[in-house]
């Protein structure tokens, strides 16, 4: 085990969860001060590998050596003492404490047990300016958006001065601007000698950032190679075991005489958005683009009754609806795929079939008694249409990969096809193969006459899929761009422009 340049050495590592093999016979050698990326589809075992290294999961077989010594981390705390930090995909934050408290949790320096708040504040400011994050130190974490939670998680890992940091999808949910800054910081860290294990779906990011990339498939390592020898196509082929058509599927324009499905006029919710008007025709996909936090998700939530707007009108197929609760909206054929699947979408501890049929139980019951064979049959049909593996409907939803969880939500809402579908970040945290399937699904739904509103931080997909793109800035619709004219550049320019009248919006 001679090479002193090896910081992390994983040998013949395996991990089983019951009968499921998450990781099988993995060998990995990570050099000190390098950025080592791990890519693979959802369920390929990347996150499990990361968690084992970070001490959060214990391996079934094999060993992990850090600095040549076997790692006997039994808990994240042990790992931390050995200089291993984590940025986790699933936030482990204390919702009722402030941002500062969360960032320095476990590393507070105290005098006689009294935390030195002034010093913490100074450290926080230093960290924040280094990262360039806009984040209020005294805000409570429970009030933060998903991207802001991600920032807290990142700052916490950096505050711990770890010599090895495992980053699992650290940029999921960050805006383009914050991602750019974060990538710079990761590079600085590596130059200063910190070793980074970087798990990500964003291949462009991986190729730009990492020195070495390991591709995993079905729990095994396919290959490890210097990043300079890889291209997005070569990585995708290795991840999937086959080449993938990475081009976006073609969109069909809505018929010129297509009726208006959804019409929103003057929708306002104080502090979130103001005077939002939009319409979606049958067969049309309308994109809501803009920076994270610009109000696009809030607009979606208000349209489908999750939050109450202060003013405005909503019509579906020409009938005024103004939903007061999601139940109202669903009855009128207006459904939403929420931004965060786990918090707002799924019941992770309940079975797949229960998750799919929850909104449709009334039509599957006779005198409120659920007809279970009919329930299973319709759930299975819906899942087959979406293309989720439905071998065992009694399994809990949390046994599915992220991509399949998202498809499960599609299966839920397409069991009785709605008239309008609002999809908020439908491809977040999903691997390339599943993404492509979801693009095709959305296009097929529109073709069958549904009106679709799509929100996404990945501008390429908004630009490629949507017939029209509405750019949201500071809670207002700043500009409407026709699909043919839309470009990532154009959308970004509008999204970022800071109230410069005339030229910016006209450009």
């Amino acid at each position: 085990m001679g090479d002193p340049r090896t910081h992390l050495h994983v040998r013949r590592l395996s991990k089983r969860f019951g009968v499921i093999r998450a990781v099988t016979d993995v060998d990995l050698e990570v050099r000190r001060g390098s950025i080592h990326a791990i890519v693979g589809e959802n369920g390929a075992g990347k996150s499990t590998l990361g968690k084992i290294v970070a001490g959060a999961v214990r391996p079934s077989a094999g060993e992990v050596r850090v600095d040549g010594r076997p790692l006997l981390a039994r808990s994240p705390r042990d790992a931390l003492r050995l200089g291993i930090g984590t940025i986790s995909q699933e936030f482990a934050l204390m919702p009722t404490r402030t941002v500062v408290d969360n960032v320095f949790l476990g590393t507070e320096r105290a005098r006689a047990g009294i935390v030195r708040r002034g010093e913490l504040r100074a450290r926080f400011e230093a960290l924040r300016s280094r990262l360039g994050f806009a984040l209020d130190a005294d805000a409570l974490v429970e009030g933060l958006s998903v991207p802001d939670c991600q920032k807290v998680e990142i700052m916490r890992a950096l505050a711990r001065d770890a010599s090895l940091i495992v980053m699992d999808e650290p940029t999921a949910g960050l805006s383009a601007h914050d991602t750019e800054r974060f990538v710079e910081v990761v590079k600085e860290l590596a130059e200063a000698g910190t070793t980074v294990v970087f798990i990500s779906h964003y291949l462009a990011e991986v190729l730009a950032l990492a020195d070495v990339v390991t591709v995993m498939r079905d729990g095994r390592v396919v290959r490890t190679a210097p990043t300079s020898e890889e291209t997005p196509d070569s990585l995708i082929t290795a991840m999937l075991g086959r080449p993938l058509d990475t081009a976006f599927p073609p969109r069909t324009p809505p018929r010129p005489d297509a009726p208006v499905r959804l019409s929103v006029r003057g929708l306002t919710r104080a502090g979130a958005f103001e005077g939002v008007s939009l319409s979606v025709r049958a067969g049309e996909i309308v994109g809501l683009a803009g920076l994270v936090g610009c109000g696009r998700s809030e607009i979606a939530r208000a349209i489908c009754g999750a939050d109450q707007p202060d003013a405005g009108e909503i019509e579906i197929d020409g009938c005024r609806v103004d939903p007061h609760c999601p139940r109202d909206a669903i009855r009128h054929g207006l459904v939403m795929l929420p931004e965060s699947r786990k918090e707002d979408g799924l019941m992770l501890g309940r079975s797949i079939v229960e998750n799919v049929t929850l909104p449709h139980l009334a039509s599957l019951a006779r005198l409120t008694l659920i007809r279970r064979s009919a329930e299973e049959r319709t759930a299975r049909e819906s899942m087959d249409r979406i293309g989720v593996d439905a071998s065992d409907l009694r399994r809990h939803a949390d046994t599915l990969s992220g991509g399949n969880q998202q498809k499960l939500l599609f299966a839920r809402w397409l069991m009785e096809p709605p008239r309008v579908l609002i999809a908020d970040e439908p491809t977040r945290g999903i691997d390339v193969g599943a993404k492509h399937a979801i693009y095709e699904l959305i296009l097929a739904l529109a073709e069958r006459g549904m009106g679709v509103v799509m929100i996404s931080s990945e501008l390429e997909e908004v630009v490629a899929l949507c017939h029209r793109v509405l750019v949201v800035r500071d809670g207002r619709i700043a500009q409407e761009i026709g699909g043919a004219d839309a470009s990532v550049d154009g959308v970004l320019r509008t999204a970022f422009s800071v109230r410069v009248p005339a030229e910016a919006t006209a450009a």
Partner: protein
Amino acid sequence: MSANAATIDVGGRLRGHARQLVAWRDSGIVVAFVVLFVVLSVSSDVFLTKTNLLHILDQQSGILIMAAAGTLVLIAGGFDLAIGATFALSGVVAAKLAVDISPWLALTAGMGTGLAVGLANGLLTTVGRVNSLIGTLATGFIIRGLAPIVTAGAIITVSGASAPDFQTLGNGHLLGVKYTIWVMAAFVGAMWLVLSRTTLGRYIYAAGANPEAARLAGVRVAAVRTGTFVLSGLAAGLAGVMAASTVATGQPGAGAGIEFTVIAGIVVGGTSIMGGQGAVWRSVLGVLFIALIDNGFTLLGLDPIYQRMAQGAIILLAVSIDAWGRDSR
């Protein structure tokens, strides 16, 4: 309930050998119950007799009724600590009306009292947004205080013309089995049906498993939770009336601490205190398991000093398995 902590870091927690532990929890109460039953059958001559077993069921009928409904409350994400006081108030209301007016009206009014208390608790904890643990603790105190006001501080003894009818529910027999057991079986069966077969049952699981996701999927979470409290109140009312009928008295101090026995039975059965998981049959086994321990102590002549300790240890074990099942890696 720290719903926030649960939603932020619920992630991929229930995985791996945690799943095996959950499987153990799933079958644990069945195994434990069967083992205890066999041990008692072998070690005591009296245990496996019709008289003893029916006696246990009769003794536990009120607890089983409240535990069946309480299971629904827990799964939907709530707690009902007011059932002990509701039990007492319903009993004294029934006894009072039996003396003053008519025995059949008395039984109905007693159950109606429980239902009304349940509705109040449900609205308080959903529309009123009061934490159900604290809210029902407080309403429990209030209701416990109302009971002696109804009886003017005394114990009401039902005697005279109305007494035979009033006592029928608690003392009559059908096919050699007491009415209380038939009523218990019907009520528990109804709760099982509601939870495992009806749309309301699914909404109850959904409200506890992920309330926000349930709301966004069109479930009226507040109404569903209120419904579980109404059923729990009704159950306490029914149990209270049955107890009053059995002894032909209304006692304001009846059922003190009975809510803890009920929750212990539910939890020992394997229903999660975090909501979203559980079943009525589990609570039946849980309640009977604790009852068998008590019965065993009596039959085998063991020192009753250790009886409470044994109960405590078993409850601890049950909640530990629940906790490990949720959080183990």
